[in-house]
């Protein structure tokens, strides 16, 4: 109630200001008259009485002002007035306003955009109940704390049977594209195979139906399928009675047992889930399955981890030969962390970069403000002398600066809106965001907070320095411009130095990334992608091409394409370089110690090496005669030769695909193959990694494949793509053709994330450079203007133009050098943690340091030379008279 009364009083005071002022006038006049009367009564003359009364009362206007303050009217009134004044000031100095708002908009916009991504990807919890209890069960290796999140099926089953720490433990892996047929429904769907308890572990249950039963995950058991909400709506019209219906996948019958809720999210988007049915094949014994577990509520991560250490020990005792390659234990990685991997580093790195950008923009702004304050020094001194309180002055500056930063924030929000779309579209790494990345409430709050925060922080420094202003000195300086107060000059110098340091750091990191990118492009691919067109022919499981069928398909299609006009050569391979991996166990015949568990395995047509321009080093290539009936042959790459035959001659030796330390994998074991030649290395799955040991076999001798990639060397012609598609359709009308593109494009996508980082950083660094140039230029020209009188005096006393030029430039260069040194030191400290983003270049790369230093020094020299030249042209007479 009392608050309401007060508010009423205040509002009354605000709106009936005239009346109140009038009353105040009357009240004080009454007082004055009483005083005069008293003085008269004391025997003074009337004039004397009036004069004395006025003296005792003091400044009437000041009392009135204080009374108004007491009524808090002024607070609101002042803010309104300040706002009005601020808008006028900003409109008047539109240059300052534009630069300030734009640089803030840039800084705030970039920060907002990156924060939206970070908020969606790193900060928001995964959409599962109690997501903190979800872990990815991973293998822990001795070296460098490496953790690999894929297990073999027997290992997973051992954990499941023997661990007591989990409420549920389940595995999943990709199930490939399947051809769904149900009545009129026909669609290629993406699938994932999962064990029982998969959805229970995630804490999700189907909206209708159930998840898989144990018998459905056994070989020979009934086949079942769980649909995603999207597929259910799209193809089954959200019909709740679909349960129990039979559908065909690649020709096999599956019973529809469940439908997932609409909000179900899994990092890998899939249309449907199928049971994972271990068959003891290489897919199960290989480390292929991701395992997710939900820790029991009564245990924490550390306790669960301790329990798994014991389970691992019993596993090691039971299967000592299964624990190889430095495997040391089980790591339970919080599920969200496991999804992020390199993305976290990339995002935090980006966030750091935009943060630095904002800092630079802010210090630029602060230094602009300082300059403006100096120009307004006399105005301020005058106001202080006329009785304006320092608090009032401070308030006015805050309002002015907040206005600028809020305008910057608003513009930044607009910028973020566009930037975000560009970021998400261009960001080449998979963003495991469980919710859409957008500008939502937390992001808006973040933007507002940084806008207000920067406004406050960077106003305070100049404002405080001006409030400490010595009125006497400032007023004396009216009409005489001396060198600015040393404190303020120092503040500006620090700001500019900081700005240069930050820009140097950004430039340095950008330079390292650009250089990594360059090195990557210089990296020998081992093949020539130019002039090649590629496409994929994935085989459906029902059209899985077994040995003879595959051989005839490949032969017919090759001949067909070869006969097209303009085609010089054509070849096929199961996996192209830089396009993925396909590795299996291979052993040198008779030498169990020479076994590689994950040898890259490629089936090719004889023309592959010629088409890709991969040179033969020794022996011979495959020919059309190396068919199914001919002796089994293989080619190996130089990396394998260096590994297995460092001294000897490999040709004539024999290798066995599907055997590892004399252990055989029945589903992939092949007859021993004789090595007939050695080919040059090409890049393996990754551009950044060296070539991997690789064995090539003729596709005509392969046991089958679930798809092939084709490369065609041909002159460019408009209809080529069409002709290629027709050629495939002519041979098999059901065969899909996907990813038809120049091979160079596929290669480019292999460097996409590095390119993204490098270019983004380069843009940031460019902006930072421009901002620092403006900062240096502003600082030097401002100090030149301030020292005009001094410079005039020096010249009058005989200093030459060169002397003046040197003196002014030296000031700029000193700051520049200090900033540069600090920035490079900072960059060196930071770059070490970015090592995984760099390639082929050390973080302390001297060339980058030199380039950044030269660039910044050059820009800084120009930025300080221009005002210095102006200073040196000062006519001493004019400068001395200029007051």
């Amino acid at each position, binding site marked *: 109630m009392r608050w309401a009364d007060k508010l009423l009083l205040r509002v009354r005071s605000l709106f009936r200001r005239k009346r109140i002022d009038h009353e105040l006038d*009357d*009240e*004080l006049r*009454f007082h004055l008259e009483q005083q005069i009367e008293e003085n008269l009564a004391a025997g003074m003359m009337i004039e004397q009485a009036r004069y004395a009364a006025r003296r005792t*009362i*003091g400044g009437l206007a000041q*009392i009135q002002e204080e009374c*108004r*303050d007491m*009524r808090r009217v002024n607070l609101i009134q002042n803010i309104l007035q300040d706002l009005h004044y601020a808008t006028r000031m900003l409109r008047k100095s539109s240059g300052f306003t534009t630069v300030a708002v734009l640089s803030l908009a840039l800084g705030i916009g970039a920060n907002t955009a990156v924060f939206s991504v970070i908020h969606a990807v790193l900060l928001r919890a995964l959409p599962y109940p109690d997501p903190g209890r979800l872990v990815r069960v991973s293998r822990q290796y001795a070296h460098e704390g490496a953790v690999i999140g894929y297990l073999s099926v027997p290992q997973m089953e051992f954990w499941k049977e023997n661990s007591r720490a989990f409420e549920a433990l389940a595995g999943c892996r990709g199930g490939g594209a399947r051809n769904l047929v149900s009545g009129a429904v026909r669609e290629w769907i993406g699938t994932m195979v999962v064990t029982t308890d998969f959805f229970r572990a995630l804490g999700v249950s189907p909206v209708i139906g159930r998840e898989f039963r144990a018998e459905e995950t056994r070989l020979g058991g009934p086949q079942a399928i769980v649909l995603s909400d999207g597929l259910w709506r799209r193809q089954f019209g959200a019909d709740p009675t679909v349960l129990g219906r039979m559908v065909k996948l690649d020709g096999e019958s599956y019973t529809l047992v469940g439908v997932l809720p609409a909000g179900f999210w899994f990092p890998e988007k899939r249309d449907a889930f199928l049971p994972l049915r271990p068959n003891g094949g290489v897919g199960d014994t290989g480390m292929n399955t991701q395992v997710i577990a939900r820790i029991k509520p009564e245990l924490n991560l550390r306790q669960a981890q301790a329990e798994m250490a014991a389970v691992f020990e019993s596993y090691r005792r039971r299967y000592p030969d299964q624990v190889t390659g430095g495997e040391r234990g089980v790591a339970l990685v919080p599920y969200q962390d496991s999804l992020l991997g390199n993305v976290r580093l990339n995002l935090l790195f980006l966030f750091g970069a935009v943060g630095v950008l904002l800092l630079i923009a802010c210090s630029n702004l602060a230094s602009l403000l300082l300059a403006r304050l100096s120009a307004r020094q006399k105005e301020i001194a005058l106001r202080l002398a006329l009785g304006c309180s320092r608090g009032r002055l401070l308030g006015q500056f805050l309002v002015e600066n907040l206005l600028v930063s809020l305008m910057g924030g608003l513009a930044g929000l607009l910028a973020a809106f566009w930037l975000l779309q560009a970021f998400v579209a261009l960001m080449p790494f998979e963003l495991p965001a469980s919710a859409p990345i957008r500008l939502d409430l937390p992001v808006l709050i973040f933007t507002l907070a940084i806008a207000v925060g920067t406004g406050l922080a960077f106003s305070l420094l100049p404002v405080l320095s001006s409030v400490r202003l010595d009125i006497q000195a400032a007023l004396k300086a009216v009409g005489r411009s001396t060198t600015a107060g040393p404190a303020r000059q120092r503040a500006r110098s620090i700001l500019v130095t900081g700005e240069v340091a930050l820009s140097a750091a950004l430039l340095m990191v950008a330079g390292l990334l650009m250089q990594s990118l360059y090195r990557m492009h210089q990296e020998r691919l081992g093949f020539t992608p130019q002039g090649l067109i590629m496409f994929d022919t994935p085989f459906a499981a029902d059209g899985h091409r077994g040995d003879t069928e595959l051989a005839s398909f490949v032969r017919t299609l090759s001949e067909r394409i070869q006969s097209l006009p303009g085609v010089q050569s054509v070849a096929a391979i199961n996996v192209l370089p830089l396009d993925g991996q396909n590795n299996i166990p291979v052993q040198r015949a008779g030498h169990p110690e020479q076994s590689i568990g994950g040898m890259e395995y490629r089936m090719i047509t004889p023309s592959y090496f010629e088409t890709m321009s991969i040179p033969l080093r020794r022996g011979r290539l495959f020919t059309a005669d190396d068919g199914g009936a001919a002796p089994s042959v293989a080619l190996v790459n130089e990396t394998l030769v260096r590994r297995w035959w460092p001294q000897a001659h490999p040709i004539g030796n024999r290798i066995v695909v599907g055997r590892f330390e004399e252990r055989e994998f029945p589903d992939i074991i092949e007859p021993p193959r004789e090595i007939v030649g050695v080919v040059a290395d090409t890049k393996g799955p990754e551009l950044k990694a060296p070539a991997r040991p690789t064995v090539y076999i003729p596709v005509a001798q392969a046991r089958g494949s679930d798809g092939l990639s084709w490369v065609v060397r041909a002159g460019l012609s408009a209809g080529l793509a069409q002709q290629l598609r027709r050629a495939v359709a002519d041979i098999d009308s059901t065969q899909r053709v996907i990813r038809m593109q120049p091979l160079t494009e596929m290669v480019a996508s292999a460097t996409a994330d590095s390119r993204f980082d490098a270019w983004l950083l380069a843009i940031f660094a460019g902006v930072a450079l421009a901002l620092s140039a403006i900062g240096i230029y502003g600082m030097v020209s401002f100090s030149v203007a301030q020292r005009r009188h001094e410079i005039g005096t020096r010249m009058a006393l005989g200093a030459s133009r060169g002397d003046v030029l040197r003196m002014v430039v030296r000031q700029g260069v000193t700051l520049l050098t200090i900033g540069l040194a600090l920035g490079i030191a900072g960059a060196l400290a930071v770059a070490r943690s970015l090592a995984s983003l760099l390639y082929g270049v050390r973080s302390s790369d001297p060339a980058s340091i030199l380039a950044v230093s030269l660039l910044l020094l050059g820009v800084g020299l120009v930025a300080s030379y221009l005002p210095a030249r102006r200073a040196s042209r000062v006519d001493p007479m004019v400068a001395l008279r200029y007051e």
Partner: protein
Amino acid sequence: MGKPSDLVQGTLDLLILKTISLEPKHGWAIAKRIQQISNEELQVQQGSLYPALHRLEQQGWIKAHWAETEAGRNAKLYSLTRAGRTQMEKELANWDRLSTAINLVVQTNEA
């Protein structure tokens, strides 16, 4: 002669509240009354009196109305509100406590 800044911080409020607790008074009368009762020891400057009055009014402890004085002049009279009376009692108690404490300190013989 004590200047207003010599008044113990916050005591001016108490003096004003106490002075008008019996009957409404205008600013001039308040200043005079304080001066008289304190045997001319305390002199309230107008520069602090009127802001204080307006602050007290703003806080809701005193209220003002315009009325004619005995001399037939229009003056702004201040009187205590109920909240103001409570506040005054609180401050009086405070003052008692404080002055007793100060007396204790300054009158103790440290021999």
